[in-house]
């Protein structure tokens, strides 16, 4: 059971980030509430990681204010014991073992936990005594996650956490995140796997070229765009496609695509037509707009 309340955990107001001549983030404002799962999505170079790095205290903005738990993110002593960070890229000491790395980084978070529990949580128990230099990329990513969730922080920032992970490891990671949420942890995520955000995020901030393109729940973001029905017909088609309220597009692969705000009604019409004419619809799919479509609509 995930609960959210209006207590602000992250407050970003009018954030501007500039790298030399490049204006990476422009006047960005958003807030994350306690217990919320907030996904920051966007195109490559949209400014997601730069924004997170300000929240994490790794970057100084050109202007604007950022508060984490009401404090400056650069006040590490106050903020970091309450905050776990999984960076998009970061390293370990190659000659230390998995267990040693978790123990050392965990100690530095000033949170209490059991090293064996955390190592087990990310499925690295068998590698606990293995040197970091001998881990695969996916195993290092899991170790990364272990240090971020050590001590069950109140806030966890995950910057592309599942990149490089196999399916099983991804599932395990999300199971662990779900358990954290049950204990009230607030989650901020960036990812290129949109289905991960679509399944879990309470709200999504969609960034493009340093600004918010849109912000809202998945339903709010996808609701404005039509649903989609796709199907194929046996060749050659024995009859024309019934007149639907929206244009039926014939796609390059020969299938048909219908974009409609009345998916159920139009699907009923299509199925009725197929029944009446004895046509088997091939590969019939119907559904609401996915986040992918919202994403594509940015450009």
């Amino acid at each position: 059971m995930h609960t959210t309340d209006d207590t602000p955990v992250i407050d970003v107001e009018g954030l501007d980030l500039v790298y030399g001549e490049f204006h990476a983030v422009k006047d960005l404002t958003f807030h994350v509430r306690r217990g919320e799962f907030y996904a920051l999505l966007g195109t490559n170079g949209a400014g997601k990681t730069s924004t997170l790095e300000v929240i994490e205290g790794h970057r100084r903005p050109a202007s604007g204010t950022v508060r984490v738990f009401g404090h400056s993110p650069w006040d590490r002593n106050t903020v970091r014991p309450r905050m776990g960070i999984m960076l998009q890229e970061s390293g370990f000491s190659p000659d230390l073992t998995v267990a040693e790395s978790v123990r050392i980084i965990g100690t530095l978070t000033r949170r209490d936990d059991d090293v064996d529990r955390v190592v087990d949580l990310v499925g690295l128990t068998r590698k606990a005594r293995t040197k970091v230099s001998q881990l695969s990329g996916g195993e290092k990513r899991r170790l990364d996650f272990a240090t971020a969730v050590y001590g069950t922080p109140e806030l966890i920032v995950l910057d592309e956490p599942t990149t490089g992970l196999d399916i099983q490891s991804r599932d395990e990671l999300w199971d662990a995140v779900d358990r954290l949420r049950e204990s009230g942890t607030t989650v901020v995520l960036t990812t290129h796997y949109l289905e991960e955000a679509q399944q879990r995020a309470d709200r999504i901030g969609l960034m493009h070229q340093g600004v918010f393109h849109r912000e809202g729940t998945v339903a709010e973001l996808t609701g404005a765009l039509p649903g989609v029905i796709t199907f194929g017909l046996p060749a050659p088609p024995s009859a024309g496609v019934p007149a639907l309220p929206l244009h039926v597009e014939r796609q390059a692969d020969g299938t048909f695509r219908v974009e409609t705000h009345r998916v159920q009604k139009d699907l009923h019409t299509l199925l009725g037509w197929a029944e009446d004419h004895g046509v088997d619809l091939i590969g019939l799919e119907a559904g609401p707009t996915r986040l992918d479509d919202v994403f594509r609509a940015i450009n």
Partner: protein
Amino acid sequence: MLAIAYGELVQLFRNRLVLLTSFIMPIAVSAFFVHRHEVFADAGSLGYIAAIVVFTVGAFGLYTSAVTTLASRRQNLFLKRLRSTAIGDSGILGGLLLPVTVLATVQVTGILIVFGVVAGAPADPVLLAVAVVATIAMLVGFALATAGVTNSPEHAQVTTLPIALGMIAVASWIGLTGAEDLQLVKRLVPGGAATELVLNAWDGGVALSESLILLAPTFAWVFVAANLAAKFFRWEPRR
């Protein structure tokens, strides 16, 4: 800070190449000077050998090791990870540099004690201790500054050479030619006043007030090194 220091110490003893180049080699060089101290004392003085020990261990055991460690930890983004925790910047640097600094100090102290037993005790051990501490502080500052312009551990093999060799050259120059000729220049070059302090502390024969004047340029270089460190040190690789 101690958690980071513990991790660094464990790695130091697991990485035999670092152990060899940073610790065994300076000890071997120092042992050679101590063993042949009569020959080198004829060329300079016993104080010259003490200065060579301090600067050889300082340059390779401390300075070069510190630059290599910092460059390596920055290159693989371990510094960024540490900055994602609750510990402050000074705690991070302290933890990373504590093992090499303590080991270098122990090495210098141990070698100088052996040297004192073999060749006779220094004239002023307290002054010698001050000179060693000032030299170590200066080299730590130079290490932080050099790490700022060093992209990788491999790059450190090049970037550390000017200061490492320069320090030993200065110690040799002053130790072999004495501090009187070109006195001002010798006192102003980095490590020059510290070398003269070591010479005076070991050989004696110089009034304490005269030696204390040398603390001014020595600590001035500590100040310069600290400022260079603040200016040049970087926490993340250049993008």
